């Protein structure tokens, strides 16, 4: 009993130490910290969208059609970023849109991580024909440009945000499978894996408890970078009319529905795009910082 408690405390200490070491390297990069803070801000904005947004995203102010942003001529302080053709407040739509974009990106990453890890570990552990088959399927997915692949999949599944997320997940899957497989194979010949096999650990235990934690660093970096591209691709599909459907205020869909107004009311196109750019930029800054902090090769130099 007390022995266990000591062991637990030991584990916690190791965990804390690892995190402290990680944070030491991560916080060295100011831009990465800025990215992290901005991203946390966006996430909070998405969670509390109902409180933060001045209006309901679908509320139509019939007397205020295509009002420019507050600081420009003819603008009104009522609508900070102006209104669209139906008199809907752009700021409120963008704030609510962050929910859709972040959730879409998050779900894509979760799907990729979970399926990618399981498939990758399976390939690495069983080798032989299973591995060949899995890797050839992944090669095939990679042979078609991601957006085209996603488009074809959405054509099969039907347009919509959820189907777009599934389609995008499938196109990103190969990167996760390859990464998991490669690092699992290089880990599986290490002494600690042999030791746990000798100690009588089962297949699943070796795969998920012994090997997997040691493959996580590159996967975390890949997950962060995929999070940002997933937001971009969701928006691209939304823009093409194959992702989220109007009146959902997903950022890409917002640009598509206001595209006809882009010359008369440019703010309806500019701000949703700026939101995408800033969110993606913040995540990429974070991803760069994570890679530098988690890559042991760079640490030593």
């Amino acid at each position, binding site marked *: 009993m007390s022995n266990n408690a000591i062991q637990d405390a030991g584990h916690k200490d190791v965990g804390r130490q690892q995190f402290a070491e990680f944070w030491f390297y991560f916080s060295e990069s100011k831009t990465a910290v800025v990215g992290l803070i901005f991203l946390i801000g966006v996430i909070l904005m998405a969670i509390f969208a109902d409180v933060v947004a001045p209006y309901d995203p679908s509320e139509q102010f019939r007397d205020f059609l295509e009002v420019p942003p507050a600081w420009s001529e003819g603008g009104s302080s009522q609508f900070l970023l102006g209104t669209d053709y139906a008199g809907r407040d752009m700021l409120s739509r963008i704030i609510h849109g962050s929910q859709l974009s972040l959730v879409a990106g998050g779900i894509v990453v979760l799907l990729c991580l979970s399926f990618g890890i399981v498939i990758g570990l399976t390939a690495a552990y069983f080798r032989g024909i299973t591995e060949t088959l899995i890797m050839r399927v992944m090669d095939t997915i990679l042979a078609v440009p*991601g957006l085209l692949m996603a488009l074809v999949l959405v*054509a099969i599944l039907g347009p919509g945000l959820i189907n777009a997320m599934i389609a995008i997940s499938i196109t990103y899957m190969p990167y996760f499978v390859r990464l998991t497989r490669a690092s699992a194979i290089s880990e599986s010949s290490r002494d600690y894996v042999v030791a746990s096999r000798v100690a009588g650990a089962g297949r699943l235990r070796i795969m998920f408890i012994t090997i997997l934690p040691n493959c996580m660093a590159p996967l975390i970096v890949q997950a962060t970078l995929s999070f940002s591209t997933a937001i971009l691709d969701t928006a691209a599909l939304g823009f093409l009319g194959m992702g989220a459907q109007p009146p959902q205020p997903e950022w890409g869909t917002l640009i598509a529905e206001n595209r006809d107004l882009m010359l008369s009311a440019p703010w309806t196109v500019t701000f949703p795009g700026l939101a995408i750019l800033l969110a993606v930029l913040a995540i*990429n800054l974070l991803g760069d910082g994570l890679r530098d902090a988690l890559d042991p090769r760079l640490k030593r130099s």
Partner: protein
Amino acid sequence: MFSFLLNRLAVLAPVFFGVTLLSFGFIRILPGDPVLALSGERSMTPEQHASLLAKLGLDKPLWEQYLNYIGDILQGDFGTSVLTNRPVLDEFLELFPATVELATCAMIFAIVIGLPAGIFAAVKRRTFFDQGIMGISLVGYSMPIFWWGLLLIILFSSILGLTPVSGRLSFMFDVEPVTGFLLIDTLLSDEKGSFASALHHLVLPSIVLGTIPLAIIARQTRSAMLEVLSEDYVRTARAKGLAPIRVYGLHALRNAMITVVTVIGLQVGVLLAGAILTETIFSWPGIGKWIIFSVFSRDYFAVQGGLVLIALCIMSVNLLVDLTYGLINPRILHTR
């Protein structure tokens, strides 16, 4: 060299069959009755339905359908568009030059700016320039290019009136298509000013399509250069008292190019995916716009054929990149 080529082809063959299997499966797992979906008809008599089923070959067992499909593809038959009733290959080849022209210009734009920017950032490591260049390229890398395109149209076409909004050529000109590449065709024709017009139409789409490759090339060139600059032979070259331009240009850049060429080759997939968005925004009559149009008009045979053809293009370019890689770095040819 020959065994190297065979080796690469052996790797590509299963991928090619994977792609055919994928495109074959695509039409079969579409929801609803495939005959109705493929013919685009709303209602038909049972006899019409049966004859169409037979005509499309959907009444045979799946394995036979697949073998026929592979056989057709190997003979250069990529199906027939339901919409235009023309062979998909003909449509593809007709539009392909437009996309290649756009992608080439985008790539030239990306390389001409990205390569020197990356080298400069590496040489001036940890200075204001380095941080500036890397900051800008991260913004480029994070860019939603469909929005970027609209933004440039608003600024350059609408406000400044400098560039055309869409298309490949002004309506004033009627240039006979010889090669399909308008930059060449306009030079061959005797219409004055048509070349300038074609070039003029290329500017914005090339910038939009080239932005992400530009950012990637700049970043990768910088890191490849940094890696090479820390090598012993570069230190030796410096110690010998060679001029910096010789050290960077001759000793470092040549070795860094191995990575850079691979990176540039990998951009082909990015370019083709980007072409879908760029061509849609600028009404550029190329493959990207065509495939989107085919998806929307449910011309599934066109989508199916286009999928295989695009994958074939990407696979050929990857093969070319591998061969170039082998030429720049002969060690690779012999180790395998």
